[in-house]
């Protein structure tokens, strides 16, 4: 069964600094997709960034980038120049073509940003 593990329940970063959130996953599939979602206190999940497993190049979206290590089944999120508005829960998620329409989420990491 596919699982997604986020080993950091909480992380803290100083405003304008860089922080990395960790995620590992377990799968026997070769073709899959990985996502990072942000959930602010409003509870509304927002897609931050996504990565196709067949692509070796790490995805980047403005201040957000990933370090995708397929062999290690690792998918970390790096947030550069952290802003107060980045404070939220962050969820790593996994999805496959063969998995139907299920998205499997990790337990989340709560990110605090200090002014």
């Amino acid at each position, binding site marked *: 069964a596919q699982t997604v593990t986020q080993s950091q329940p909480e992380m803290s970063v100083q405003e304008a600094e860089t922080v990395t959130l960790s995620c590992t996953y377990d799968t026997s599939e070769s073709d899959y997709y990985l996502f990072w979602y942000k959930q602010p206190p409003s509870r509304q999940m927002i897609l931050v960034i996504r990565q196709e497993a067949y692509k070796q190049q790490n995805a980047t979206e403005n201040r957000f980038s990933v370090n995708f290590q397929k062999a290690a089944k690792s998918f970390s999120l790096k947030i550069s120049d952290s802003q107060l508005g980045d404070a939220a829960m962050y969820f790593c998620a996994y999805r496959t073509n063969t998995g139907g329409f*299920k998205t499997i989420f990790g337990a989340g990491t709560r990110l605090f940003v200090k002014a």
Partner: protein
Amino acid sequence: GAGVSQTPSNKVTEKGKYVELRCDPISGHTALYWYRQSLGQGPEFLIYFQGTGAADDSGLPNDRFFAVRPEGSVSTLKIQRTERGDSAVYLCASSLTGGGVLETQYFGPGTRLLVL
């Protein structure tokens, strides 16, 4: 509408009661998903609709849970004989076609259900 909306925002009920949770997807989105998020956990898939039909209901935990989408837009998640373990935030999401694994799912703010 501008985004996915869910009503009510919060619902408190007593053990054994029946509840209905409503989801209004983005206009024109044919795919609709329900997730359940327990305290301290990530969302857990419940059911996926393509139009009016449930294409995948494998995440529904038991037969007390049921969902409908009769006209292919608004969906209602129904929970019978509620139990304290049903307490969670129920999230709804929609996407344009549901045809692609990378298609962006837009989430609503959820309904927080508390069963006393």
